[in-house]
């Protein structure tokens, strides 16, 4: 184990180096660029033995990774924002073909207006593509997700591609001290990829075929089962990870002071840290505040959320996303989880951080106070609720 001072992008690249992908195909885009720059340097200096393929677009980047995976290789790609949207067609191919590719996505705003800064509208718009979706909070978690991602994605019961999301700039470009596992430990944790879902000259197969109305729904059911199977596999993988590397993770969600909380913010990504600090401050003032950080949007933590929120007085979802004409998608998902579990507590949606706008400690204090007092169903931080706060 060594320690280095790394950005989120660099930490993720270190995790990928330890995971030994055999093919990397990526197209640079801000704020993802540094992760692929570091990986190309690792290939160049020989510390990562991979085929680095320069492609002409994100569509090609993921298509190339699918081809590599279909040849039985461990494949990696990375993108962000418009690049992820350009990949959208291929996302479904990768998931439907059950190719356990890993992608890092630097969460970034989508045009128009053009903007390179962070929000989560890019990846959340692709929740239905069939990929596992993880959201990292810090650089250490980013590295650890990179290493765990292949083990989860390649598990036979799962066989599903994996998207690890890092908040653009806030996480991809900020530096912190990161523990880097030893190569020997990493190899013990993650064996080489083996699969029957590959081109094999000795056993010719028809791959990536069509399926008509008679069987199509069975493929889709099995795809759904694969993502659901990741629930248990994520927990098992984190347990094994803790045994080897000593760092513990908490599955699909991470709870903070929720046991006795009256008011809870449910959020995801790097903003969770500030929410916890604010909860601490409010606790000193006698407000029983708590935080649930969603670590995985797919598979979705239905039961975990119902369990964490069943005794609260009210909750709010803080997300960097809006599904225009409705509400933030995270809020929709959380509400559904509670409804299914028969948990009936008031909840409010807080949309913030769009286009990289800062979310301040004062904003989060106001969210807690709005949750306590009650507010509009959907609130834009800095503007207001359904009537635009006027």
């Amino acid at each position, binding site marked *: 184990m060594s320690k280095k001072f790394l950005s989120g992008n660099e930490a993720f690249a270190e995790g990928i180096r330890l995971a030994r992908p055999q093919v990397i195909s990526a197209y640079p885009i801000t704020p993802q660029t540094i992760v692929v720059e570091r990986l190309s340097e690792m290939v160049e200096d020989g510390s990562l033995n991979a085929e680095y393929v320069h492609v002409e677009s994100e569509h090609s980047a993921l298509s190339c990774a699918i081809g590599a995976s279909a040849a039985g290789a461990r494949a990696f790609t990375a993108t962000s924002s418009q690049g992820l949207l350009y990949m959208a067609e291929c996302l479904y191919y990768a998931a*439907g*073909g*059950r*190719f356990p590719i890993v992608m890092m996505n630097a969460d970034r705003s989508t045009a128009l207006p053009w903007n390179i800064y962070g929000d989560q509208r890019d990846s959340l718009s692709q929740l239905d593509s069939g990929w596992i979706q993880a959201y990292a909070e810090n650089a250490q978690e980013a590295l650890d997700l990179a290493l765990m991602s292949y083990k989860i994605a390649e598990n036979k019961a799962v*066989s599903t591609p994996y998207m690890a999301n890092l908040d653009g700039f806030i996480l991809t470009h900020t530096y912190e001290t990161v523990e880097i596992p030893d190569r020997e430990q990493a190899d013990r944790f993650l064996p080489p990829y083996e699969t*029957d*879902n*590959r081109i094999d000259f000795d056993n*010719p*197969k*028809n*791959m*990536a*075929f069509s*399926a008509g109305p*008679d*069987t199509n729904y*069975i*493929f889709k059911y*099995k795809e759904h089962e*694969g993502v659901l199977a990741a629930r248990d596999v994520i927990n098992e993988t984190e347990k094994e990870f803790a045994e080897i590397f000593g760092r513990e993770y908490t599955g699909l969600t991470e709870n903070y002071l929720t046991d006795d909380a009256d008011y809870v913010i449910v959020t995801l990504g790097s903003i969770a840290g500030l929410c916890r600090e604010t909860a601490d401050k409010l606790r000193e003032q006698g407000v029983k505040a708590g935080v649930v950080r969603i670590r995985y949007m797919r598979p979705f933590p239905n039961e975990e959320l119902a369990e964490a929120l069943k005794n609260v007085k009210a909750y709010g979802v803080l997300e960097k996303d809006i599904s225009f004409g409705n509400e933030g998608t995270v809020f929709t998902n959380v509400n559904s989880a509670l409804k299914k579990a028969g948990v009936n507590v008031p909840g409010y949606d807080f949309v913030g951080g769009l286009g990289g706008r800062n979310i301040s400690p004062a904003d989060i204090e106001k969210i807690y106070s709005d949750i306590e007092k009650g507010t509009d169903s959907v609130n834009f931080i800095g503007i207001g609720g359904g009537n635009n706060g006027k």
Partner: protein
Amino acid sequence: MRPYIREKKDFTFDEVPENTSFEAGYLTTVNSGWRSIRPVINSEKCKGCEQCYLYCPDGVISIEDGKAVIDYDFCKGCGICAKICKIGAIEMEAERK
């Protein structure tokens, strides 16, 4: 190996693979219904050079007794074989119903 038709059957839930990969060449129907022109080989001229066999995008040409033979169950009538044949042994003829 020439393609051959298997009996069409209903796949049970368990028989449907987890992923989109399955035994190659598992064909249950012929597939040439949209062909409007068909290649016809003049076996007097054909030298069995295998150029048409190599270029056929559907893999429906085989060489039997030194001459090209076309499997009309799967030929789509694209005409590439006629274009590639240097000795003019393949001509495209209109399909007639």
